[in-house]
């Protein structure tokens, strides 16, 4: 097969950069789920902590997508 790929290398960079936050968010919610499974009554407290951690980890991926478009 003799094809060519067009597009910006930025997008590959963004795909690689998204791996880290992806793993991070997975770990955060894994910890949240096992925490709730062990202690269901702690759900309310854990939920806001989990969402806070999710938001902080996700910011990295979001900065990545911003830069992928900004740095042409």
């Amino acid at each position, binding site marked *: *097969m003799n*094809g*060519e*790929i*067009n*597009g910006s290398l930025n997008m590959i960079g963004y795909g690689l950069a998204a791996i880290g936050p992806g793993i991070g968010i997975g770990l955060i919610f894994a910890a949240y789920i096992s925490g709730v499974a062990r202690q269901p009554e702690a759900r*309310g*407290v854990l939920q*806001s902590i989990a*969402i*806070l951690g*999710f*938001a*902080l980890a*996700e*910011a990295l991926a*979001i*900065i990545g*997508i*911003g830069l992928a*478009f900004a740095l042409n």
Partner: protein
Amino acid sequence: MSTSVLAVEGGEGFVSPGPSTFVYPPIFGEGTFLTKPMLIVILGSALIAVLMFLATRRASVVPSKGQFVGESLYGFVRNSIALDAIGKPGMKYVPYLATVFFFLATMNIAGIVPLVQFPATSRIAFPLILAVISCVIFNAIGIKRHGLGGYFKDMMFPPGIPWPVYILLAPIEFVSTIIIRPLTLTLRLTFNMFAGHLVLVLFILGGEYLIFEYSGVVGIAAGTVAILGSLILTAFEGFVQLLQAYVFTLLSALYIGGALADEH
């Protein structure tokens, strides 16, 4: 495989949507200033104001349906954002937090409302202004609570650390509180909406292109899948949009709580 596989014989090929999707010309032609995002902000704000006014107009002990909905939404901000993140002193800041939450939720949800379908918050100006307001508020609260010197001392020199570390830590803490916090608030909201809207536009335009331009059995089948996928993604976007409004408000509340706390 080349992306031009999708091109129709002699056609232009599919051009995937880019950042230019977010640029709208003025509605009333060149020289005027009113654009679609601005119109969404104005109408959305008016909508919240009218709904909240109607919900609280004849407030009674036994609430009507409208009053119940309005009070539940306000109560959500009060209980699961202000009280959870700040505690008892947070009651003072519920009006600001509720305003931010309702404003952002409406502007975000505009992204999946039929016929409107543009999240106004994907234009960076709106989240930026709100993040700057939040930043000014939590710094002002901290300075009011601890005094100017005390606030910056608490922020930059947390106790219990050997002193040489402060050379490194103090500038980092300062930059992270004054600059990084509003910046991440802005970027998180903006690019969540930006990316979500872009994905929706890509699925819908791509599906339309596959069905009507590429056509054939393969095109129609793939296009149908893309259009159905766009429906699922719309529901997912609605979830993300509410979540992001919640996250913005929760982080603002946590920063206020941090500024109020006696020790960092």
